């Protein structure tokens, strides 16, 4: 049984009377626990695909099944509930809430689920990413790498079944990137989460088990890297 299944995903935009096809009938299936990357040139439709898979956007045609739930027919609020239950996010520009402290940022998904011990769980997560002492700091008081680690802690807070990451290291320097990437894979392995990674970085992509390549909205290749789940 797959955790994520895309069937003939097509996304078009109407602009100036012309129809722009950004994704053209893309299909694939991901098994639970897989690590998976989407690569392709700029403007090829990677972010669009990620947005569709995570239920942030609606496809023009085709279907998405996340944990066997058909997303296309759900309302925006129902999809929000799905995200809260099963999905974690990591963004290129971190997307921490600037008005909340690091700890509070990590607490949000837990509190949204009405979890009682949100503070304690969040603190443990912060410690896991090495920021146990920085919980009361606001995002502006943290470096880019630290912010991304907070956002990692937040992404894992609700024990997601699948984690989406769009260029997680795009805004970080090489050394920091390495730390963050290691952390992503470690946490992913510990939690047994499925990872969907969008990146330009082929070296990063090669650390996942499977790479799909898109170009001009078309899926051009789907290769297994030979990495296995428990190793890398």
């Amino acid at each position, binding site marked *: *049984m797959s955790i994520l299944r895309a069937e003939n995903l097509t996304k078009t935009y109407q602009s100036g009377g012309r129809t722009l096809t950004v994704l053209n009938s893309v299909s694939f299936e991901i098994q639970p626990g897989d690590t998976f990357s989407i690569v392709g040139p700029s403007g090829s439709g990677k*972010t669009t695909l*990620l*947005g569709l898979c*995570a239920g*942030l*956007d609606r496809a023009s045609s085709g279907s998405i099944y996340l*944990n*066997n*739930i058909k997303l296309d027919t*759900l*309302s*925006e*609020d*129902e999809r*929000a*509930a*799905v*995200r*809260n*239950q099963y999905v974690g*996010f990591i*963004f290129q520009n971190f*997307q*921490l*809430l*600037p*008005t*909340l402290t690091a700890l*509070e940022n990590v607490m*949000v*998904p837990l*509190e*949204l*689920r*009405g979890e009682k011990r949100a503070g304690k769980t969040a603190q443990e997560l912060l410690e896991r990413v090495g920021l146990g002492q920085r919980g009361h700091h*606001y995002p*502006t008081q943290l470096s880019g790498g630290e912010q991304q680690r907070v956002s990692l802690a*937040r992404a894992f807070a*609700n024990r997601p079944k699948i984690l989406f990451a*769009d260029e997680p290291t795009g805004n970080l320097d090489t050394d920091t990137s390495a730390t963050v990437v290691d952390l992503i894979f470690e946490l992913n392995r510990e939690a047994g989460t499925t990872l969907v990674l969008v990146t330009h970085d082929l070296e990063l992509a090669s650390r996942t088990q499977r790479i799909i390549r898109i170009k001009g909205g078309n899926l051009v290749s789907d290769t297994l890297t030979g990495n296995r789940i428990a190793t890398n």
Partner: protein
Amino acid sequence: MDREIPNIKPQAASIFDPWLWKMAWRDSRRSRQRLFLFMSAIVLGIAALVAINSFGDNLSRSVDEQARELIGADLVLSSNKEINKSTEQFLAKISPERSREVAFPSMVLFPRSQGVRLAQVKAIQGKFPYYGAWDTQPADAVALFRKANQNRQRVALVDDALLVQLNAKPGDSVKVGKLMFYVAGRVMKIPGQSAVTTTVAPTVFIPYGFLPETGLLQRGSRATYRSYYQFAPGTDVDKYLKTISSRLDKLGINSDTVTERKEQTGRAFADLTKFLNLVAFVALLLGCVGVASAVHLYVKEKVASVAVLRCLGATGRQAFLIYLIQTSLMGLLGAIVGALLGSVVQLMLPAVFGSFLPVDVVTEISWKAVAQGVGAGLIIAILFALLPLLVIRKVSPLRTLRSSYDDDVTGRDPLQWAVYFLIVLSITGFAYWQIRDWKMAVGFTAGLAFAFGVLTGIAQLLMVLVRRFFPVSWSYIWRQSLANLYRPQNQTLILVISIGLGAFLIATLYLTQTLLLSRVQLSSSGNQANMVLFDIQNEQKAGVQQLVKNHRLPVLQNVPVVTMRLTEINGRTVEAIQKDTSAKIPDWALTREYRVTYRDSLISSEKLTAGKAPYQTNDQVYISVEKGYLERMKLKLGDKLTFNVQGLIVPTIVGGTREVDWNRIQTNFLVVFPKGVLDQAPQFHVLMTRVGDTQQSASFQRDLVTHFPNVSAIDLGLILQTIDEVLEKVSFVIRFMALFSIITGLLVLSSSVIISKYQRIQESVLLRTLGASRRQILLITLIEYLFLGLLAAFSGIVLSLFGTWALAYFVFEVPFSPNFAPLLAVVGIVTSLTIIIGLLNSRGVLVRPPLEVLRAEA
């Protein structure tokens, strides 16, 4: 298969969810000051509402508590007719505790200061007032005056206003008619009388016993005869009054009781409070517009955070509620601060309204007023804040991936129309709550919508025009500041509306005031009369005319006046018509004393509209009536009016009607008889002349008083001065209210400048990085606010010119020729204020080094 049952029930979003409140609180931590700034815009509006309402409450309570002091007695009976023996017997029996008063206008002269003018003379006898006390300087003057009747001492008390105006003081003498009185004291306040009443008719009080010797009460004198009564405690005066009311009606005597006066006064001030409440409400609405625009900017900033929350699984409703809670709490805080401020301001209101108040107002906090002000203010403010807040529901989580995504917040939201509808509904509702008249409430809302609409139109037109005709060839500084007027997140609209409305209020106030004055001044132009002498007896006619000539003044008009009363219309008695409620003929027209002249032609200020000038054929008397009178009396040509001319019954026929130019100082008459009917009737004469300067006027009046003490002179200068003084008092109140709007406008300006500060900082840092000097940035900001201020002030003034023109044309029916110099001053002041506030708030951006600014504000 370990297939989970998917739990995809969306988060239930209830306003009672503690997490939402927690989030609202956490999220506000870093922007609390700014949030409060949004809401500060409503502080003044709510303060004004609370202050006015509290004041209204306190006033009506004070009126209740001091009701008896309003008339100083339990019952007042008054008549315009001389009291004959039998009436006097009847009046004397009503209660043993009775004070008598005769009031009439007369010239008074202060020989020491040579001051002379027409004043109200009141001859008083008895212990009046029974409730409340006279306030005189020196304080013992009242006691002296009270004893004067028995002791036969010629002692007078004089209104402070009169003494000040004629440069006289206690200890002086005053000549009233043929007698000289010793001025024992100045009257500061009498129970039930406001300062405005004294301005209009300043009074000299003399002992009743000396009245005959003054020689002033002659035929034709317009005197009011009053009796003040006190009853044994516990007497039901209103019930007693019912038993004698038919008798009073027959005698033409009016009555006034504490209950009636209390109701009247209460109603009058309730009306005033309501009017002021509407003015306060306008200030509140201005503030709300400010709130809406501030929240709009705030929401724009929060969109990214909302998208993240949505990504993490929050529903649109949850996100919306977080920010609704935030703004509502800040609104509540603003409302509480407003209520506090309002409660303090109301302590000042008795001073502001002082000259109108017939009672001493005891101020205390009115919780009802506080609750109403906070409630009304909060509802409206939240509704206005809702407009921009609604967008939050629609924010797409896709924004986290794409910063440029904009599809979610553009496009119309049907709920937005619902909110607009609610706003209009609550404004109309509020207006109705105040004035209890749907038509006027809708009119108020429509008027407001019109003003807002015009200002919005002007602002939008400006933006379009600047963009269309952008002066590409101008210097960089000008181009940049012009571009600021229409760039995204500009403040053009909000500032033009708020400041424009403030300028509109002030300018309208000023224009109306000058309009009213010009209406009076108009009559003094050319060679028209500016002084009227009246109450000239038959035998004095020649002498007065000679006196006028001796002073080299022209006799412009000299008309006889005969007083009479109406007894029948088309054979029906006045009493019968009065009882017939379906007749709808005003009471005053039936019971008044008619002053009638006789002549066979119309004069220059009159125009025949139907029928003929007065004439007489075969013993039939054809009279001419004024057009408006004809309409109000529901008369037509050929109707029969019967008059009682001092005992003689004279039947007449309406033979013609004429239009009268009331704007001229002229002896204008409702009814004109033909010659030959009234020539032998007891009559007095009115003479019109034109005096030069005040000195000539005064010297003539002094001579007149000396030789003909019973003849009264009224000059236009005096009327103008009186109107001016009354208007001054009224406009002080309105200016006080307009102040709230103006300050609110400036607060809105400050807050919108501060809110857009970060954006400005980034811009100016960028400009400075690109090499712009501090001076250049300062200039850009200055020119931008110059444009905004000028435009707002001009729009407001154009709007007010339009409004006052309508007032002049439709209501006062006078030509409208405003004086533009003071209006330019309004433009200047408003514009400078805008620039100053704008620059003050941008100061932080301008003086600090770019990087430091960016760090601090990030």
